[in-house]
């Protein structure tokens, strides 16, 4: 790993070009090597990368544990479905709906963040978990008295993204190369993921990013140094939620169908796990976590086939195995790499500090803050 990094830092242009080529041909290589289904897995890996990067702003940068993050994904997805499906007979173009979805999710980020401002740690996690469930339960039940969400059946026939008549939902042949829908979406998602990475990187290294880090390190000291902790925390919720909403809209267009089922608590936990596994606060780590946790469960499906081939029947359901391995992986990680696979330098130090005696005293100094 270090050798690769040294080499890449010596030849930045070449390394960058190689990465670009690799990302460009990836869907073809994967599609040819593993089958077309795997291109869809790649698409989801990109979606989850966006989600994980968004949640990383809240959890990794600002240190606010949010267990209801999937709600913003749901809001983005539902807004896309409402404005681009037969549900209300609306078919607005994606470049109107996607920003609206991001905006709606961002506003809800502030709305749901506001009541939690005084909470920390476990308490914050429980309240955000509740908010996440509230949104899902609303979506599940808002089919009456007026049918808004179509309830548990979900919304079907959502418009695919189409750019000037070029629908990403159909197969196209460009320059003699057949491009299937998942491949087309791959490039779209890749563009959005790169955009998300760009924004996340720039935010991290800025006045706002420093303020988030300061709040994470010591909220009282941050306030006493003139940081408006309320606004800066709400900003973190809003920014995270915005990316969640954006990813949600893309998800709705890609799937063509959404239902409350897709936005359950397990999804929130998965996204959090991606961050924790990869390395909280560190963008390469978060990307690695998201890709690993999307791709590995898919790979485990083969285990069922092997069992059938070797034993004639499926002894252990791959789905159960998935949770088992997942649990083992998490425990192993907490033991051997508690700061994640690719931790940020600062986070690594924080974990080390907590090991020792140097944990800063968190006096209950606040009684004026609201």
């Amino acid at each position, binding site marked *: 790993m270090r050798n690769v990094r040294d080499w890449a830092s010596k030849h930045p242009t070449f390394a960058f070009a190689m990465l670009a080529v690799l990302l460009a041909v990836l869907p073809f290589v994967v599609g040819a090597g593993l089958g077309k289904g795997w291109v869809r897995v790649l698409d989801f890996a990109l979606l989850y990368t966006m989600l994980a990067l968004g949640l990383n702003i809240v959890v990794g940068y600002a240190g606010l544990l949010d267990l209801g993050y999937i709600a913003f994904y749901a809001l983005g997805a539902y807004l896309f479905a409402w404005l681009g499906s037969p549900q209300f007979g609306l078919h607005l173009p994606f470049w109107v709906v996607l920003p609206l979805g991001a905006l709606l999710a961002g506003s809800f980020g502030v709305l749901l963040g506001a009541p939690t401002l005084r909470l920390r740690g476990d308490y914050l996690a429980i309240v955000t978990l509740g908010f996440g469930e509230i949104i899902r339960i609303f979506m599940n039940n808002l089919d009456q008295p007026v049918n808004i969400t179509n309830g548990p059946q979900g919304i079907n026939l959502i418009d695919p993204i189409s750019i000037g008549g070029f629908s990403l939902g159909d197969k196209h042949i460009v320059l003699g190369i057949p491009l299937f829908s998942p491949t087309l979406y791959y490039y779209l998602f890749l563009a959005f993921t790169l955009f998300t990475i*760009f*924004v996340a990187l*720039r*935010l991290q290294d*800025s*006045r*706002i*990013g*420093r*303020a988030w*880090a*300061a709040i994470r*390190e*010591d909220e*009282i*000291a*941050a*306030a*006493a*140094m*003139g*940081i*408006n*902790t*309320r606004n800066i925390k709400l*900003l973190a919720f809003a*920014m995270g939620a915005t990316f969640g909403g954006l990813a949600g809209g893309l998800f709705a267009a890609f799937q063509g169908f959404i239902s409350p089922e897709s936005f359950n608590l397990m999804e929130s936990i998965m996204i959090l796990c991606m961050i924790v596994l990869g390395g909280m606060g560190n963008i390469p780590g978060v990307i690695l976590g998201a890709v690993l946790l999307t791709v590995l469960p898919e790979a485990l499906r083969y285990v069922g086939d092997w069992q059938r081939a070797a034993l004639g029947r499926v002894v252990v359901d791959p789905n159960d195995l998935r949770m088992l391995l997942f649990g083992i992986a998490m425990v192993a990680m907490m033991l051997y790499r508690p700061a994640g696979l690719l931790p940020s330098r*600062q986070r690594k*130090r*924080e974990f080390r*500090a907590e090991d020792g005696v*140097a944990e*800063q*005293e968190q006096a209950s*100094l*606040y*009684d*004026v*803050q609201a």
Partner: protein
Amino acid sequence: MTLLAVDNVTKRFGGLNALEGVTLSVNAGEVYGLIGPNGAGKTTLFNCMTGLYTVSAGAIRLQDTPIHNRKPHHIVGRGFARTFQNIRLFANMSTLENVMVGRHVRTRTGVLGAVLRDPRSRAEEGAIHDRSMELLDFVGLRNRSRTLASHLAYGDQRRLEIARALATEPKLLALDEPVAGMNPNERREMGELFIRLRESGITLLLIEHDVKLVMGVCDRVAVLDYGRKIAEGVPDEVRRDPAVVAAYLGGAA
């Protein structure tokens, strides 16, 4: 000219009156000492003044504007910064980053500026960096700018906290036991830093146990005991005040 006026401030924690009708005023340009035995309420008063505690009764005014029960960032914005008795640095950030956080309240770049890095935002970021380096220079930490705050020597951490507070451009700087736990050499250096701070036009409010230091650098001193002010005046008078002697040496003395 009165810079900070504390008017009849009371702070109750349940049945305990940590502060009882404390009144004092700090003039612009002076070094004002706040002394008293352990548990006298000095830090409580600091926390009330800087917005970490609400006051139960009374008023605190900075240049005639009430600041009691306002949020800390608002008070910092009005030009009143502080340090902490038990150092509260951002331990896992570099020395320079700590000071840069202090510039937050005097700068404006938002999300859009941070993402786009337009010329104005870049200029501001550059200015934050340069000003922070100047302040590190001022407190003598320039060559430690990349060191982690938690890796600094104890005395340097105290100095860094002062630099971070200075980054908010305070008119009034409140230091909570800035030389606690320092050796004589470090104390002397810190005393010199106070003189330089005063020369740069900043009013200092000092909580201190080291009576020699207090008597040496302070223009005026107030003494707290059991949440009440028992004396105020120039150091020499206060030192001879029978109430102060009794508070420090016990009632029988």
